[in-house]
C-alpha cells in the first residue's frame, strides 16, 4: 500500500489537473482579448499575447448598437429584479410560514414551471405583449424574464425564510403588531441578506437570458446577448472584438459571484440538496 503522503500528493495532482483543464478556456478568452485583432487569429494560436493590446476593446467604440445593448440589458435586468422581488417576497413568506393547502399547491406549481421550455411559451408571450403594447419595450422583456425568475425567487426566498426563528414574529404579534406589520418590520429586515442574494440571482438570470430577448426585442431594446450573437452575422466574424465583448459581458456576473461566492453556491445548491 502507498504511504498516505504519496496518495495525498497524487490526489492533489489529479485535482489540480482537473482545475487547470476547467480554468483554461476562460483564461484563454481573456488572453485572446488582449492580443491585437490580427494576432487573435494567428496560426498557430499562442497561449499568451506576444504584445499586450487593448485594440479589441477600443474597437467596441465603433459599434454604437452593441454599446446601447449593454445599457438596455442593465435597465431590463434591474426592472426584472424589482418585479420579481416585489412578487416573490410575500409569496415566499406565505409558503414558508403558513402550512396551508394553497401554499403547498403553489410551491408545486412553481416547481413545475421549470419543465417549460422557453421556446414553448415564447410565441404566446409575444401575442400577450403585443396586446399590452409592450413589444420592444424594456418592461415587456423584463416581464418575460420575470416568468423565469419569479418561481426561482420564491424557492430561494422560501428556503431563506424558513431559517428565521418563528419566535421573532410571535413576539411582535403578541406586542400588537399586525400580520402585515410583522412581515414588513420583522421578516423583511431579518431576511434582507437572503433577499439580496436572490436579487443578484434574478439580475443575473435576466442578464444572461437569450430566447425571450430574441423574440421580444427588435431594434429598440436589444439586449447585450442578442447584440453580441448578431455581431457575428452582421460583420462576418471579428473574433478579436468578439472576445473583448465576451469578457466585458461576463464581468458583472463574475464580480457579483466573487463578492458572494459562498452564498451563491449555497443558493444554487439549496433547492437541490433540500429537494
Amino acid at each position: 500500500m502507498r504511504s498516505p503522503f504519496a496518495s495525498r500528493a497524487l490526489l492533489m495532482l489529479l485535482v489540480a489537473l482537473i482545475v487547470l483543464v476547467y480554468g483554461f478556456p476562460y483564461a484563454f478568452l481573456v488572453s485572446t482579448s488582449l492580443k491585437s485583432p490580427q494576432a487573435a487569429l494567428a496560426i498557430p494560436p499562442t497561449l499568451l499575447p506576444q504584445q499586450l493590446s487593448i485594440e479589441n476593446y477600443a474597437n467596441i467604440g465603433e459599434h454604437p448598437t452593441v454599446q446601447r445593448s449593454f445599457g438596455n440589458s442593465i435597465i431590463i435586468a434591474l426592472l426584472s429584479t424589482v418585479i420579481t422581488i416585489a412578487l416573490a417576497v410575500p409569496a415566499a413568506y406565505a409558503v414558508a410560514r403558513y402550512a396551508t393547502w394553497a401554499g403547498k399547491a403553489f410551491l408545486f406549481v412553481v416547481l413545475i414551471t421549470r419543465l417549460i421550455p422557453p421556446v414553448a411559451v415564447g410565441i404566446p408571450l409575444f401575442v400577450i405583449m403585443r396586446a399590452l403594447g409592450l413589444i420592444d419595450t424594456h418592461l415587456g422583456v423584463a416581464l418575460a424574464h420575470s416568468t423565469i425568475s419569479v418561481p426561482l425567487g420564491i424557492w430561494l426566498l422560501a428556503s431563506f425564510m424558513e431559517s428565521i426563528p418563528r419566535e421573532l414574529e410571535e413576539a411582535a404579534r403578541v406586542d400588537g403588531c399586525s400580520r402585515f406589520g410583522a412581515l414588513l418590520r420583522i421578516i423583511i429586515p431579518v431576511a434582507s441578506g437572503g433577499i439580496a442574494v436572490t436579487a443578484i440571482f434574478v439580475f443575473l438570470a435576466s442578464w444572461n437570458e437569450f430566447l425571450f430577448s430574441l423574440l421580444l426585442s427588435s431594434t429598440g431594446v436589444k439586449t447585450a446577448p442578442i447584440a453580441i450573437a448578431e455581431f457575428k452575422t452582421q460583420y462576418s466574424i471579428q473574433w478579436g472584438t468578439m472576445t473583448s465583448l465576451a469578457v466585458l459581458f461576463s464581468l458583472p456576473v463574475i464580480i457579483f459571484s466573487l463578492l458572494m461566492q459562498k452564498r451563491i453556491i449555497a443558493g444554487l445548491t439549496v433547492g437541490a440538496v433540500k429537494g
Partner: protein
Amino acid sequence: MPVIRLTDRRFVLLLLAPAGCFLAIFVAYPLLLLLRNSFYEVSLYALNEGVFVGWDNFVQALGSSRVRESAARTLNYTIIALSAEFVLGFGAALLFHALGKRSEVLRTIFAFPLMIPPIVAGLLWRFMLIDNIGIVNHILETLGIIGDASDISWLGDRDLVLFSVALPNIWLTTSFVALVLYTGLQNIPAELIEAAKIDGADNWQRFRRVTVPLLRPVIAVVLILRGIDAARAFDMIWIQTEGGPRFASEILSIHIYRAMIRYGNVGEASAIATLFMLGMVLASALAFAVIWGRGTSQA
C-alpha cells in the same frame, strides 16, 4: 358594515395573490394559448386568428422525419451532456471529499465556470473549436494526437457536432454537479463509513453499499435538474451552429424556434412544443420514480 376578519387563510391567499396573478397571466395563459394553437392552423402574421384543424398538427408532427430526428438528437444531446457532467462531476466531488478541508481553494477555482454566461461559453468554445486556428486542435496537434490542425472539424462534421455543442454545456455545469454532490457527501455521517470499514468492507464495497445509496436523493435531484436544463438547451447551441451543419445539431427547441419564426408554421410548432413538454413531464416523473423511489423502498 360587516368587518372581514383577516384569518390566517385569507392572509396567505392575499400574500400569494400578486405572484399568482402574474404567473397566471404570463405563464399559465401562454401555455393555454400554446395548447390552443396546437389545434389550429395559425400564421405568424395573424396570430389571433386561425382555423381549427383538430389533431392535424399532431399527426403532421409525429409523421415528420425531421421532427423525429430532432427528438432523437435532443435525447442524444441530453445523454451526452448529462453523462459527461455526472461522471466528471461525481469524480471531482469524490476527489474534493477525499481531500477534505484542503480542497477549499481548488473548489473555489473549480466553481468558476458557474459564473460564466451561457452565451459567452458558447462563443468561447466556438472560437476554440475552429479547425485551423482553434486552440483545441492546435493542442491536439502539439501533443501528437492529430497530424494536422485541420484534421478534426468539430462543428462542421455532422457525426461529431452533437458532441461538440455539448462541450460548453459540460464545461459550465460539471462544477454545479460536483458542488452539489460534494455537499451531499459531506452530509453522510462518518460513523456509517467507519462501521462499514470495521465490518471489513473495502473501498469499492463502501462506495457501492453505503455512499451511493445514501446519496441517492441528491443524485436524483441533480440528474433531473440537469437533465431538464440540457433537454431545454437553446442559446449555447444556437450561438455555436444555429442547428447546423444541415440540421445535425438541431435539437427540439431549435427546431420549434425555426418552425415558428423562420417558417411561420405556428400551429405545427405549437403541437411539437406541447408533445415536447409532455415528454419532459413523463421523463422527469419516471426518473424521479426510478432513482428516488428505488432508494426509499430499499431503505
